[in-house]
């Protein structure tokens, strides 16, 4: 709530800054004071060069490029890691490097495998001889490539395994009598936080233990990917938790866990609300049934939108420098970007917490023991 207000406030202040700055830039351009002809010549040359290079600068495209998944992982300058492409078509599995999708000038080219493949807007498509998309054939194409997001996900998995297994081993090594040390003391408060603030209040102390591994795994996976996404360079920089596929997978996992563990009274409350008139029951059933699906969908969209919005915000601020084509814009853009980055750190934790919190709440709702006598009495 606070954050949303904050973001709208920022948008207003940013547009103000933009208006102010554009006039300032114009003012700067008007008096071209030059002492010598030589200086003027070099300045003009520089300006014309920049204009040529940055004239076709497209903010939307640049930002989307950073937000979207990619087959290669850009490191610096012209160096990037070409990730493997794994395709499944009617002719079977196919492996090749994503290097094959570009030529030496980084222009997209057609790769001739079992079919003719080409990257169209970052997605692998089957093209015909003329280079046009073969929509029918592309529908049969399953892209299991190790993309930037997948690679980043694997990195986060490795980090999680290393950190958490070493933390868990510390308990075996030092026993329970001594105070936690090092990475163990960093992890233990978070684990306790998930247990005491998320699992137990929502699920209940008795059943919470059963769902703790699930909730902890979700929490740490989202948290790690959120933090990795905030690092602007390798091994971060991928927008995993701001990717709808990632959030969808987790939301589906929550959906499965909630509905597999749901007890009889949960389903009864959905299809035949106790303590209601039969007409009301008929009226409520479809609404409650939709609710079963909207809960995980809201989880999916909340995480995706929050993280993507944060990335877009930071990238927009950085793009200000290129929009105004002056280095002085960075005086505004960089502090704001740092400020938003700080907020994003909070959001990274908050969103992991909210996702886990709501997952625990849904599990709690599905496994809650209802006391019908009191329930019905309350309704009448």
């Amino acid at each position, binding site marked *: 709530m606070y954050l949303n207000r904050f973001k709208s406030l920022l948008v207003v202040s940013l547009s103000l800054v933009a208006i102010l700055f554009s006039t300032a830039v114009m003012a700067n351009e008007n008096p071209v004071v030059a002492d010598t002809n030589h200086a003027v010549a070099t300045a003009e040359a520089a300006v014309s060069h920049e204009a040529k290079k940055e004239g076709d600068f497209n903010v939307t495209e640049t930002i*989307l490029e950073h937000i979207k998944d990619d087959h290669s992982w850009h490191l610096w300058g012209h160096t990037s890691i070409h990730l493997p492409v*794994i395709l499944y078509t009617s002719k079977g599995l196919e492996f090749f490097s994503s290097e094959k999708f570009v030529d030496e000038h980084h222009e997209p080219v057609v790769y001739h495998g079992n079919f003719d493949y080409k990257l169209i807007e970052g997605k692998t498509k089957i093209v015909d001889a003329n280079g046009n998309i073969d929509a029918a054939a592309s529908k049969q194409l*399953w892209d299991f490539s190790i993309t930037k997001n997948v690679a980043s996900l*694997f990195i986060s998995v490795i980090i999680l395994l290393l950190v958490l297994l070493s933390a868990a081993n510390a308990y075996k090594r030092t026993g329970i009598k001594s105070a936690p040390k090092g990475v163990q003391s960093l992890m233990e408060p978070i684990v306790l936080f998930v247990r005491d603030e998320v699992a137990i209040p929502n699920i209940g102390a008795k059943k919470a233990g059963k769902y703790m*591994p*699930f909730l902890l795994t979700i929490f740490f996976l989202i948290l790690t990917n959120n933090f990795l996404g905030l690092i602007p360079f390798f091994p971060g920089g991928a927008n995993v938790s701001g*990717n709808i596929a990632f959030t969808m997978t987790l939301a589906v996992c929550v959906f499965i866990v909630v509905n597999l563990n749901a007890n009889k009274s949960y389903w009864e409350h959905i299809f035949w609300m106790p303590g209601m008139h039969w007409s009301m029951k008929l009226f409520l059933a479809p609404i409650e049934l939709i609710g079963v699906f909207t809960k995980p969908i809201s989880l999916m969209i909340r995480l995706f939108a929050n993280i993507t919005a944060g990335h877009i915000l930071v990238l927009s601020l950085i793009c200000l420098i290129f929009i105004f084509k002056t280095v002085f814009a960075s005086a505004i853009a960089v502090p704001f970007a740092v400020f938003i980055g700080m907020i994003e750190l909070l959001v990274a934790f908050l969103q992991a917490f909210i996702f886990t919190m709501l997952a625990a709440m849904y599990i709690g709702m599905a496994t809650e023991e209802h006391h019908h006598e009191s329930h019905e009495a309350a309704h009448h």
Partner: protein
Amino acid sequence: MLLEINPLVLPDIGLVFWNTIAFLVLLIVLGKFAWKPMLKAINERESGISEALLKADKMKAEITAMQNENEVLLAKAREERAIIIKEAKEASEKMVNEAKEKAKSEYDRILADAQMAIHQQKNAAITDVKNQVGALVIDVAEKVLRKELSNKAEQEAYIKQLADGVKLN
């Protein structure tokens, strides 16, 4: 498809697939080797701490009870000490008194004995003196009588004198 309007909201099957695998691997591996030992250790520690706290409370209560008991014992001991001292005092006083009385009676007895002895010896002495005086008197009287009786006329005169002395009333 509607979702294809914006590439951002179109989920890639590849990421879904790998993410599912990654999540399941994490869930299984971490669940078995990280969360389970961690939660177990935390629970054990917590139960250990609560047990220790309970124990400490119990100990505290025990110590308080012991202190009370000690105080009672101490008071009792003090009382007993006072009694013992009092008794000892009484006993000693009694002993002193007894000794005094005994000494006095002994003294009295010795005194009486001494007096008696003195008395007896005095009597004996007196008797002795009396006897000796008697003997002397008899001796002297005999000598006197022998001398007196050798003269008949004088004898008669003396008897007459004696007879005169006796008054018949």
